[in-house]
């Protein structure tokens, strides 16, 4: 576990860069976190996915997998990979300040 500063706030992240304490996350951190993932321009579509995974985590205790995202977020798998080429479920979870989603499919 390490501590890093995002948008002027100290947050705790694990070895893979996922927030240890999701409550330390704020939406204002998204542009900075996205930049770290190579996403320079955060569009409304990015925000739609990020808010969706955050909400899923808050209601279900875990973030959605890519398949679940494709089925329930209203954004297709193809579009999800255009938005987050390095893995939509994983990257969206990281920039939404939630743990890495569990699940193999």
């Amino acid at each position, binding site marked *: 576990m390490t501590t890093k500063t995002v948008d002027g706030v100290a947050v705790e992240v694990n070895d893979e860069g996922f927030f240890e304490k999701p409550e330390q996350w704020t939406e204002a951190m998204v542009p900075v976190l996205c930049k770290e993932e190579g996403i320079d321009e955060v569009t409304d579509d990015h925000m739609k996915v990020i808010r969706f995974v955050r909400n899923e985590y808050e209601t279900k205790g875990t973030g959605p997998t890519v398949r679940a995202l494709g089925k329930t977020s209203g954004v297709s*798998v193809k579009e999800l990979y255009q938005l987050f080429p390095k893995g939509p479920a994983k990257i969206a979870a990281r920039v939404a300040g939630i743990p890495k989603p569990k699940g193999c499919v």
Partner: protein
Amino acid sequence: MVVPTQPIEKVSIIISRGSLDGIYPGLIMANGARAEGIEANLFFTFFGLEAITKKRIEHIKVSTVGNPGMHMATVVGALPGMSALATHMMEKQMAKLDIPTIPEFIEMISDTGAGIYGCLLAADMFVLTKDDCIDEVQDIITVGDFYNIAAGGQILFT
């Protein structure tokens, strides 16, 4: 979990068997790779071609003969309808876990940007062309083409 210093960046997965239990592992590995942001290719060869052949893709069955994991005597596994029954039961269980069917899974894997290819030699053997294959198949290629596509990554044979 320890994060390795040199992460896997690319995998090319060969699917060589045509049974349900022969096809799913490769699909799960490819889909899982893309979920991690790892570049992935699928190469279907020999009976694995069943999974990308339009006429066959909806009829993939579990193998009940010569499969000790089924916990049934070989003679029982060989009874008519046994494979269909085992397939039905397994598909029900997989649907419960929200594992997609093979056609849906391949479509999804294709949408993640993975490459999907058929083996030319196997296609020739079974007298199949690209037209016989589902739309997700990008090309029917030689083993040499496969190695070119797989260059710089890991190769998994299933």
